[in-house]
């Protein structure tokens, strides 16, 4: 539970081939349109891969985890299956890893839906589930008081 007024601004979920599967803005701020989000997600996916190779110890590197800028912070959590959960937060926010792990748990429930199709290469379609949105609403209320 975050004590300060630090807020989580947006959430992106990128599948293992770099395609954007879900994006959501939590504060009603000026949202980027979907195409822009798709391109940015793909670019981040590429940068994340590059960052792993730039490391002096590439086998032991988990890629970009935090990206700090002047107006915001950007966190990335890569799951064991290659799905990346990204969120942008206020600059004063410390560590969004716990939040992203909570999102990961909710995401795992999406996979139990027979109508959420995953094709042979393990790539999922965009998430369009009421249930997922509702569970996220519940989760975000804990983090954005």
């Amino acid at each position: 539970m975050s004590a300060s007024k630090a807020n989580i601004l947006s959430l992106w979920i990128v599948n293992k081939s770099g395609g954007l599967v879900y994006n959501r803005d939590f504060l009603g701020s000026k949202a980027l349109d979907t195409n822009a989000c798709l391109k940015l997600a793909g670019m981040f996916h590429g940068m994340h891969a590059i960052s792993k190779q730039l490391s002096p110890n590439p086998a032991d590197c988990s890629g970009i985890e935090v990206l700090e800028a002047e107006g915001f912070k950007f966190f990335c959590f890569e799951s064991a299956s290659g799905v990346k959960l990204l969120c942008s937060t206020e600059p004063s926010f410390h560590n969004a890893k716990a939040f992203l792990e909570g999102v990961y748990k909710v995401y795992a429930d999406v996979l139990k839906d027979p109508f959420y199709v995953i094709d042979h290469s393990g790539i999922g379609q965009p998430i369009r589930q009421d249930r997922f949105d509702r569970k996220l609403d519940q989760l975000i209320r804990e983090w954005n008081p």
Partner: protein
Amino acid sequence: MPKGLPLILDRPIPKGKSEVSLSAFAFLFSAIVQYTKSSPTPARSLTTWEERLHAIGYGVGIRVLDLIVFRTKGVDSRETDLIRFLTWIQTTVWKAMFNKQAELKKVSQDGGAVFLICDPDPIVSHYVCNPPDYSKSFSSEAYLAGFLAGLLDGAEFPAEVTAHNYDPDGTGSREINCEINFKRHVLQRAERVAK
């Protein structure tokens, strides 16, 4: 016969509850729903798809009947009373399968009484989110309806069971009503026995 290994027939039948992880079952059910859509031939209509789910549930119901009767204390003879059997389903069977109770309602109609088993939030389809174009016409709870049909058939109360989503206010309620239409001879027999 290898020595030292206990024969499965010599082992006692496990009594008591065994719980299964909901996630494990959810993945299995999701696979069942996808399988019934495309195998052995692609289902050409939502009704066919529901019938296949119904058939799978039927197989479960027939087998589970004996197991639950065996595990219920105080049952030493076959239940012949219709209402008591339905009450037993609503309480004991639902408790053994889903750890909660369902509701039993009776609706009188011209052709005879119709019974409803109502479950406000069925566990089997907890994670299934129907896409908007399917939501009014397809319900994966056909599996539950088949389960009930199997139970009733096995106990010699053959009936047609269908599952309907009960959402009168459009609030997205997931309540399922399983409508049980007993065959005519069952209802007549129940009347004769009651006299």
